[in-house]
């Protein structure tokens, strides 16, 4: 009986020793923070840590704690810890992102016409200091500061690390600052709001050295913003010699051309899709 018991105990002991070493990772790990993985078994083994951007391999003593350094787990995601002695065993664990510490802000377009409905979009991505997208909901405060007038604020909670808003551009031209922030973290982009199409385009004619000088009144959009210099204005003259069109860019708010006129003539003006007034020369105006 004793012999039988002894042999049973010895067999159980050896069976226990022959069992593969096991690893017990922590229930939760955070990117960049060191922690330990408990191991079972005896003797030496090789430890592997495989992550999204990391592979570590080192000799370890089984049965103790295996230290994992912060730099080994900077990337959030699923990690595989493997220990090999006689045989290999493995476990998976998840490393979650660290605290939000970076904001990436996409604002489009960089240049927009005034009073354009929902023309500006701002998308904020929230990252930790290791560039991991923070997937837990975060409150992002968006603030738009127009060149004149009161700032507009709106808060959005991130979904899957992303928050976004749509904005209508202001009626007044100039740079609008679009800002996204979480606590002390902030990112800002500037959207240039430019005048829309010309509105109430009007011309006048005065005698010039080479004929008639035709010039516009200061060209503004319907909100009163000056249409940018360089915008082309087309002058069309119809007289006895036929029809002639001359394009002239706006300079200092005004477009100007000189035209030779023979007899009665009609001069009209247009900019883009907008038509202005028409002048009749050599007859009633």
């Amino acid at each position, binding site marked *: 009986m004793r012999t039988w018991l002894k042999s049973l105990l010895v067999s159980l002991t050896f069976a226990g020793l022959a069992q593969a070493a096991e690893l017990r990772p922590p229930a939760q790990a955070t990117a960049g923070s060191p922690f330990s993985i408990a191991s079972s078994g005896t003797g030496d083994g090789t430890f592997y840590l495989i992550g999204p*951007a990391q592979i570590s391999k080192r000799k370890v003593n089984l049965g103790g704690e295996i230290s994992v350094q912060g730099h080994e787990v900077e*990337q959030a995601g699923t990690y595989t810890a493997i220990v090999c002695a006689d045989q290999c065993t493995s476990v998976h664990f*998840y490393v979650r992102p660290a605290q939000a510490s970076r904001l990436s802000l996409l604002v489009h377009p960089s240049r927009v016409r005034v009073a354009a409905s929902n023309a500006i979009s701002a*998308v904020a991505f929230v990252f930790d200091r290791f*560039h*991991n997208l923070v997937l837990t909901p975060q409150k992002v405060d968006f603030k738009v500061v127009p060149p004149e007038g009161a700032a507009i604020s709106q808060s959005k909670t991130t979904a*899957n690390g992303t928050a976004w808003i749509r904005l209508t551009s202001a009626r007044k031209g100039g740079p609008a600052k679009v800002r996204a922030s979480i606590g002390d973290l902030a990112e800002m982009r500037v959207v240039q709001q430019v005048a829309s199409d010309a509105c109430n385009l009007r011309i006048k004619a005065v005698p010039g050295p080479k004929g008639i000088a035709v010039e516009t009144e200061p060209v503004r959009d319907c909100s009163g913003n000056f249409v940018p210099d360089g915008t082309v204005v087309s002058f069309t003259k119809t007289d006895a010699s036929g029809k002639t069109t001359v394009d002239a860019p706006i300079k200092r708010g005004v477009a100007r051309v000189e035209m030779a006129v023979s007899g009665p003539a009609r001069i009209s003006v247009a900019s883009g899709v907008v038509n202005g007034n028409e002048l009749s020369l050599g007859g009633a105006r």
Partner: protein
Amino acid sequence: MRKLAITILRRLILLLAAGLVIVCFSFLQSQIHAASEAPKVDLNADNVGPRAIEELTSKTIARDYANAWKTMAEALDKNRVDLLDGYFTGFAKDKLTQLIAQQKQTGVRIRYDDRGHKLDALFYSPSGDAMQLRDHAQLGIEILDGGKVIHNEEANMQYRVLMTPGADRWLVRDLVTTPEVKP
């Protein structure tokens, strides 16, 4: 008579051997072909917002994401960083470049046997310059140290993907596993 029988037998054996060689060759060819094929990707864009995905974009996303996985698997298998240039950018490319450098350093290698992906488009930015997706991937994952397999599993993985448009294709900008694994 005996000589004739031996000759016929020899010819039969030769014929069988030739047949076997042809079958083996065809099998190897098909395996090589299968390995170089892009995995199957199904994209569901029913719940995407705020912008709807255009039909052409949805085809392009599925094609380019499949190519991204194909090139990633090849890059990791062959330790070739240059293969990442085609379909990866930003953080995703940085991470994979680092991973390949560590593979070279440690002699450990990750092999993917890609069984396909189910993509759900989650977010498509209003200006069309970023798309976020969730991928349920079925993968065979093998980790080798030198020639020895130290880990082997069939896994259902879930990834969060950020893609942005490039000159003629969509590029993977971020690729992260998330813990919600659904078998």
